[in-house]
């Protein structure tokens, strides 16, 4: 054999990785600076597959980076800036120590700063890349913009975040892009569609801050630094895609409307404009003066077969979206002072509604409470002293539920003092056979255009008298079984009757007029189809049959589980009802 002896850890994975400390030394940076650089450049630690090999035989847990990444970092011009900054701090300290104030001033003036523009361009070579990554940026900016202006982070950063988020919200309003809203206990989730991308972000409730101690603020601030730059450039591009002016300018007409004598009470002159923008009540001015955009219609292509179905589905979706965009058009809202103004104003304006509030709540209110044309007054307290007849007084959840349901829901469930229906998450998409809560079923029925008259009657009846309970149960069961075949329901009916008789209740024996059984064409067709399916199943090979049975079994199990949940729910509802009744008595 012969040859030189191979040394350990000089080839293979050991040479591909580098520990954090070594990387830091290689770049001649302090740990905070190194961490900041990595975050800005998008270089993340890596877990090697064989740690022991990489770690030169030691099994200690370490943070590793790819050596190539670190080599790439060495070319970054910002590294030089970091070093400059270190020197700057040292000089400043010295000047302070010697109480040389002129030197301090001079140093301050020449404080080394850096820009992240080239990093943005490098990390997101195309606009669409940036848009895909904007979720994080939005979350962070919205979060930082709600921070109190204490010493936790730079006031300037907070101001910048506020400005950017306001710009973003104004853009979403202008583009009518909002799709879903979800009020959670954590914060408010929004989802918007921007240039075909679904973008989700989380906004904390106002004034809901406790500062957790186990969060590294420096890291978060660094991320924010990057994301503010990114969001700014994205905003610029988005505004220009809609022919809006950037930085945003309020519409001339709206501007004059908003002009008030007592503006100075709200904000200083320098802040006034941003405040007005953030009020979200006025529309923005465009480069090409407001031409009514004609709705671009989907191009029609001659297609065949299955594609036509897809096309139709897409068209339907498109139509639905168009309808959703105009959800609140023509409605005039007035926000009482106890409701979250910004969120509601944002949502309402996103769907074309007009919104105003009390003058003392915020700048930019458009009309007073006394305006007769207001259609909806949003209140979140048990009762209101003075009520106008020609408007609905509703709770804020109505607005959000309407957005999620994509239709205007009946307002009755949301009147003052009424126990609200649950606020369902729009981010859950049920598959076939999953359990669907009855509230959602109701909404789905409404979307299909059916009237929920049945249930309303039910409620009324129940309030009137309790004796008809049995009948109602029957009715409800029929409702539930509506999806299944009729035979099953009949069977169930029989069963219930039997049970009742066994319990000793008198059967309701009636003579009902006979019905002519009408030959239903659709029904015949269905039967035919079912027959065909049965035959196809019979013709299957043994192997396929086995697979098919397995699938069907799985489906059935799912349905069974869903039914179980539904039954549970019913029991729960009944219990609640009886409780209520007792309470009433």
């Amino acid at each position: 054999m012969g040859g030189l002896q191979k040394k350990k850890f000089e080839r293979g994975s050991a040479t591909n990785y580098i520990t954090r400390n070594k990387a830091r030394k290689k770049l001649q940076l302090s740990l905070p600076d190194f961490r900041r650089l990595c975050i800005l450049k998008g270089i993340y630690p890596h877990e090697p597959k064989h740690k022991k090999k990489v770690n030169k035989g030691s099994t200690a847990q370490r943070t590793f980076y790819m050596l190539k990444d670190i080599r790439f970092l060495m070319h970054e011009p910002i590294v030089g800036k970091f070093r400059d900054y270190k020197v700057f701090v040292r000089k400043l300290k010295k000047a302070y120590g010697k109480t040389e104030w002129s030197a301090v001033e001079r140093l301050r003036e020449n404080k080394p700063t850096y820009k992240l523009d080239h990093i943005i361009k490098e990390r997101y070579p195309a606009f669409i890349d940036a848009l895909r990554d904007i979720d994080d940026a939005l979350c962070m900016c919205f979060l930082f913009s709600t921070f109190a202006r204490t010493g936790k982070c730079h006031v300037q950063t907070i101001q910048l975040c506020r400005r950017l988020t306001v710009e973003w919200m104004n853009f979403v309003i202008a583009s009518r892009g909002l799709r879903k809203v979800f009020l959670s206990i954590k914060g408010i989730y929004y989802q918007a569609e921007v240039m075909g991308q679904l973008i989700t972000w989380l906004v904390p409730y106002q004034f809901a801050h406790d500062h957790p101690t186990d969060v590294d603020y420096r890291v978060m601030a660094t991320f924010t630094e990057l994301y503010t730059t990114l969001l700014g450039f994205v905003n610029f591009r988005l505004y220009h895609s809609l022919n809006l002016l950037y930085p945003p300018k309020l519409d001339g007409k709206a501007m004059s409307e908003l002009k008030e004598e007592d503006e100075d009470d709200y904000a200083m002159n320098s802040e006034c404009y941003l405040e007005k923008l953030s009020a979200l009540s006025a529309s923005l001015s465009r480069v090409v003066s407001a031409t009514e955009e004609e709705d671009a219609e989907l191009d029609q292509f001659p297609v065949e077969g299955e594609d036509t179905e897809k096309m139709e589905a897409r068209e339907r979706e498109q139509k639905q979206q168009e309808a959703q965009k105009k959800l609140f058009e023509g409605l005039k809202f007035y926000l009482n002072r106890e409701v979250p103004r910004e969120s509601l104003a944002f949502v309402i304006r996103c769907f074309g509604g007009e919104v105003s509030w009390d003058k003392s709540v915020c700048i930019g209110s458009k009309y007073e409470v006394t305006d007769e044309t207001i259609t909806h007054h949003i209140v979140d307290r048990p009762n209101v002293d003075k009520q106008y007849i020609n408007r609905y007084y509703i709770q804020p959840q109505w607005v959000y539920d309407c957005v999620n349901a994509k239709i205007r829901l009946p307002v009755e469930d949301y009147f003052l003092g009424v126990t609200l229906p649950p606020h369902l998450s729009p981010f859950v998409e049920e598959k076939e056979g999953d359990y669907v809560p009855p509230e959602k079923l109701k909404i789905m029925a409404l979307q299909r255009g059916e009237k929920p008259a049945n249930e309303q009657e039910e409620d009324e009846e129940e309030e009137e008298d309790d004796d008809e309970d049995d009948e109602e149960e029957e009715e409800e069961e029929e409702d539930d079984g509506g999806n299944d075949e009729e035979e099953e329901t009949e069977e169930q009916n029989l069963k219930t009757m039997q049970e009742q008789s066994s319990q000793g209740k008198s059967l309701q024996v009636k003579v009902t007029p006979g019905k002519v059984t009408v030959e239903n064409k659709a029904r015949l067709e269905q039967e035919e189809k079912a027959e065909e399916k049965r035959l196809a199943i019979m013709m299957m090979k043994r192997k396929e049959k086995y697979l098919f049975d397995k699938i069907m079994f799985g489906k059935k199990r799912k349905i069974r589980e869903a039914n179980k949940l539904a039954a549970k729910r019913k029991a729960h509802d009944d219990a609640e009802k009886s409780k209520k009744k007792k309470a009433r008595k």
Partner: protein
Amino acid sequence: MAAAKRLKRVAASQPGFLNLKTTLDSVDSSSSRRKRVNKNKKKNWNKHSDINDVEDFLEDVRHQERTTGGLLSEKSDDSLFFLDVGKPEKAEQKEEVVVGKKRRGKTSRPLRIDLILQHDSLVPPAKDVLAYQQPNAKKLRRIAQKAEQLAAKGIVTRRQKRLANRQPLDRKAKKSVTEANNNPARDYYDIWGQESKDSSDPWYLQQTGKKLVKRPEKLNDKPSVLPAVEVIAPGGSYNPDFFSHQALLQEAHAVEVQKQKEEDRIERQLAVNQDDKATEDTILKEQVEGLVVEENDEETAPNEEEDDVAVGAIVLAEKKTERQRKREKADKMKEQQRHSERQQINQQQQLFQLRSIKASIKQQEEKTNQKQKLRKANQEAQKSQPRRLGKLKFKPQDLEVQLSNELAGSLRRLKPEGSVLKDRFKSLQKRNLIEPRERAKFKRRHKLKYVEKRAFREIT
């Protein structure tokens, strides 16, 4: 001036004049012998007449004027002396009280310290001539006159023209360089629209380190497949559906149970073993240890000795005979032959087992396929898991959940749960963007020293 001087001299020659310096008198007495000098020449007058006394006198006068503001002899007695009548006691205090009431109006009275420092000499301070003079006054006046003349004529000089044409200093350009990154009024531009301006030579840029290095494609991959924003479960709605709320509670409950289990396990491991505890029996045994001689010991002792003897012997093998060797060789050969024959038969038989062999191979392949699939699925699942990136493992944050009685009926009464900041931070960790870390603990470099203060020690 001369008249004034004379007057002073006259005043000084009078018998009532006081000298400020007392040394003057002693000078006169120390003259020994007079020198004879001709006084018929003016030169000698100057040389030999003694004018010291006059000069000293004049010096003294000037001194008095400088320091006391006039000749002491001319001052009234009241300004120089006062009658010492002991302490001015209560009378004055009362007066002050009276004054104190009026004090508020009397802000204009100068401070005593200013009075002391007031300039009271009669000699005026020397005049600073330069303060009234302007250097080059004549020249400047001439230039101004000329400029006026030219302006009247409407002529603009070349110098003025050049001044007017000079470009204003571009201060803004320098400022934009130093603008901070988080300046709230910073402006943005279309970063994706414009192509980078490659005006200069790429070779030059590369050599001078001004060219940006291309980012490797691989760095644009995300380290985790998880979405940036994970929406909370439907049970986390502020007004949740009953079942989804229950489901969320169940989930949170499971987490808590797991935690409790872990805790219990540790507790159990730490608990004292019941067998290790001292009972009365063992205590007694310990106390009696060595007092009672047991018989068993005697019996076991001799056995051990026998064993020791057996270890020492070595068994020698006997030598094989020639015959034995030959037989062994033949046996070996036979065995080998049988073995090879057996193998051949087996191989021939395998021809008839082809089907079963095929089946077994198929089975094996299926097995490996399944394993591959499983491994792939595992790898996929691993992608969404947080990796181990440092000393600490990722710890998911506590589930945000509100109990049924904490749920608010309306948006107004909602109490937000958890913190969005923490949620974001944990999300970054979960997506492997940053490694989980602990807050650095404060470490004292030197130990604290406690010393009782003496005052405190005296009391105790």
